[in-house]
């Protein structure tokens, strides 16, 4: 594609003053990159410390509540006679099984409605 440019303006652009190389400018970029790097390190360190504190604070309550939830989820919904029947029905005859079945049903229902 031929695009004509004004030769006089072209010459003026060619002759126009250019910004001189400035070592201080390069240094300022270097310093800014360094400063941002340190800021990222500081934020990461802060996050690590916060996670540590949170973990220490929540360790005991978390363990307790997780144990309670595990007990609840494995509790049979309907009392069944016989160990082996209870074992076989375990995946559906517990709170966890019921939650799973409800979620699966919801998933199938949504798929049918949406698609």
């Amino acid at each position, binding site marked *: 594609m031929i695009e004509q440019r004004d030769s006089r303006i072209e010459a003026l652009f060619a002759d126009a003053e250019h910004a*001189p190389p400035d070592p201080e400018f390069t240094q300022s970029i270097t310093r800014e990159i360094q400063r941002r790097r340190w800021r990222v390190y500081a934020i990461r360190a802060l996050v690590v410390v916060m996670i540590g504190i949170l973990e220490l604070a929540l360790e005991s309550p978390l363990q307790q509540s997780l144990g309670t939830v595990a007990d609840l989820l494995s509790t049979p919904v309907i009392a069944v006679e016989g160990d082996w029947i209870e074992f076989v029905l375990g995946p559906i005859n517990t709170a966890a099984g019921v939650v799973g079945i409800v979620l699966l049903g919801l998933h199938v229902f949504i798929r049918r409605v949406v698609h």
Partner: protein
Amino acid sequence: MSNAPAYYAEGPEALIVSLAARGDRDAFSELVRRRQPWLRTLMRRFSGDPALADDLAQRVFLKVWRRIRKLKQPEKFPGWIKRIAVNEWIDHQRKEGNRWQQAYDDELQAAPIASTAEAIDLDAALALLPDVVRTCVVLSYNERLSHPEIAALTKLPLGTVKSHIRRGSLDLRELLDGYGAQQ
């Protein structure tokens, strides 16, 4: 970072870009050293303000540092950094609430006419053009980009770019007539 190996200064740009993309800060420093006169000049042509131009150029280099790892083809670095620079300039215009894309109105048109008798230099003449026209003219004459390339960079319609460059060139000629006569 300031203790860049001496041989970096002689290395081809694509190699320096590759090293910078791998996180070599000395290589990036070398890139900044090489490219800063061009970038600061481009930003001065765009903005007409040396302090603002240096500020924008610094922002461009910081963006380049953040994104250079994603540049898969080092030989495309010149076009890539130019795109970042133009986007930075346009973003700055928009953030400042300037009338980017507004080519001429009565107020803007009056300025060049009032100044034609003065002997002014190129940067002063460019400063009298509307932002969008100046951007197109600078990309055409300073960067020697084609009209479609300018349209792609600025996201302006091709016809608009052509019109801005034609109109901007005419105004520049008129503005610089006085300057040329005194040279």
